[in-house]
């Protein structure tokens, strides 16, 4: 690997008060001396960042601010819709971060960031000072981006289920209540958005449920886009596993949704009006609200970062990662957020000691199930480049178009292993 610009002299000088750690590595981490790090958001990005700052720099005081008591993962929430997982099995606690790694957990909502004074304000009035801040709030849904739709409509009749939780349960209940022979409409947004293959895995998993329980039903995908992630693999999978059930209409063919009517349960797209028994609207998105309020976002609603470190382009000593960031070629995925978080943690550990950080390398693998025994994937390695984070040439890519059932089954097994692994790596 490339030579780092770390040097022993630098490191020892940088370690300063903590140099004794080298000789006596069992100094309790409570003796905070190598800076204060605040992390906003305890999802895949923020929780991983908090954990890995502690791993790379145990004497740093790390505070993780998160508004929700538990974390319900979007990954595998499509399997809840299919009835092959329950919500409980995708709900996780963050306590191991405290118990095993010494991260301080603060339950609350960050409402403002003062990047000059370097402090984070919480809803309850408390304020948290920081030397380095990590902002990983995920996404904000743009309800106004779909005319006729609203937060209230989403909570009652036309769920997005793009943040896992009550909306996932609502969508599942609607599928269960639907009569055999109904049409499920799924409306994915234009790029960029959280989890590019997610809507199409959702189509597959809803098809799995319908095939087994309501085989006369149909799925209509009204897309704002003309192409989508792993398209060839998904479409071949749909044809072989769910023949005749799924219709996908590209944006250019009139698929883009122009408005919805939650009362009449209709969707108007370029090609005309369609009634749905179940309607899943996946709206356009931006970075999480706190990133916007803190002035970290560009006009397009996403946060520009240095591709070598994910340091904010807008504020010093602030890092933005995960879905909220503009990560070049990397998709908005949990695996990508976890990978970016490790680079951020290394940069924070190094910068607090005044030494140069290791060279960034990023990784993403997104598995999707077409059926519970039929997995496909996209996987890439990335490095920082002049135009942003870029795929390493001649590497990565998607599962082969033609594969034996055994390969699809192996990828389905690996999907399960990936999930267990990333949960362990993120939350301890």
């Amino acid at each position: 690997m490339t030579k780092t610009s770390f040097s022993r002299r630098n490191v020892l000088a940088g370690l300063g008060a903590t140099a004794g750690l080298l000789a006596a590595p069992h100094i309790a981490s409570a003796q905070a001396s190598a800076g204060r790090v605040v992390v906003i958001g305890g999802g895949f990005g923020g929780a991983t960042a908090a954990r890995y700052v502690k791993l790379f720099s145990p004497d740093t005081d790390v505070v993780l601010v998160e508004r929700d008591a538990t974390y319900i993962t979007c990954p595998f929430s499509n399997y809840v819709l299919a009835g092959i997982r329950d919500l409980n099995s995708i709900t996780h606690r963050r306590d191991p971060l405290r118990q095993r790694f010494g991260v301080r957990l603060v339950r609350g909502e960050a409402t403002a960031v003062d990047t000059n004074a370097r402090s984070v304000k919480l809803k309850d009035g408390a304020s948290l000072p920081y030397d380095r801040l990590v902002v990983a709030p995920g996404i904000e849904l743009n309800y106004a981006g779909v005319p006729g739709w609203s937060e209230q409509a989403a909570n009652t009749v036309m769920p997005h289920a793009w943040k896992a939780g009550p909306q996932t349960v609502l969508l599942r209940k609607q599928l269960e209540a639907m009569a055999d022979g109904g049409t499920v409409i799924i409306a994915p947004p234009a790029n960029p958005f959280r989890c590019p293959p997610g809507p199409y895995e959702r189509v597959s998993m809803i098809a799995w449920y319908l095939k087994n329980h309501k085989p006369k039903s149909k799925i209509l995908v009204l897309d704002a886009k003309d192409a989508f992630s792993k398209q060839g693999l998904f479409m071949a999978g749909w044809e072989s596993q769910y023949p005749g059930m799924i219709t996908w209409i590209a944006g250019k063919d009139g698929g883009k949704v122009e408005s919805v009517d939650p009362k009449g349960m209709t969707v108007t797209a370029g090609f005309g009006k369609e009634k749905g028994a179940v309607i899943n609207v996946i709206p356009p998105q931006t970075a999480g609200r706190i990133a916007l309020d803190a002035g970290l976002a560009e006009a397009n609603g996403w946060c520009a970062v240095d591709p070598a470190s994910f340091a904010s382009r807008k504020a010093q000593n602030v890092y933005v990662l995960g879905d909220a960031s503009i990560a070049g070629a990397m998709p908005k995925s949990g695996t990508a957020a976890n990978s970016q978080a490790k680079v951020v943690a290394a940069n924070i550990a190094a910068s607090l000691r005044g030494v140069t950080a290791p060279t960034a390398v990023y990784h993403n693998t997104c598995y999707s199930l077409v059926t519970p025994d039929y997995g496909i994937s996209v996987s890439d390695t990335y490095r920082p480049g002049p135009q942003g984070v870029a795929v390493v040439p001649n590497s990565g890519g998607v599962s082969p178009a033609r594969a034996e059932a055994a390969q699809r089954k192996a990828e389905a097994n690996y999907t399960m292993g990936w999930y267990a692994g990333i949960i362990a790596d993120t939350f301890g």
Partner: protein
Amino acid sequence: MPFRIHILAVALVLTAGSAVAQQRIATLDDTALAAQACNVCHGSQSYLSPTMPPIRGVDATTLYTALIELKTDKRPSTIMGRISRGYSDEQLKALADYLSKN
């Protein structure tokens, strides 16, 4: 010589009574950082994946041979061929060495 540069001697040691995490980062260099990506699927010392082969502590030559065979399609795989093509042979060698020891 990144392996000789001890950046942060880290043992995760927590306040009395709490469990001691087993994962250790003896050095934080390019290879140590890159190797953390493997944890997501293969696990770390403190976690073993139910469906992926363990790689931590495996003999360096065995790991390196496997990675090169995956990279050159000599060994069939689902995604490791695609992943190993993201690294030079030297980087894979460094990763194999690191994983065998950490």
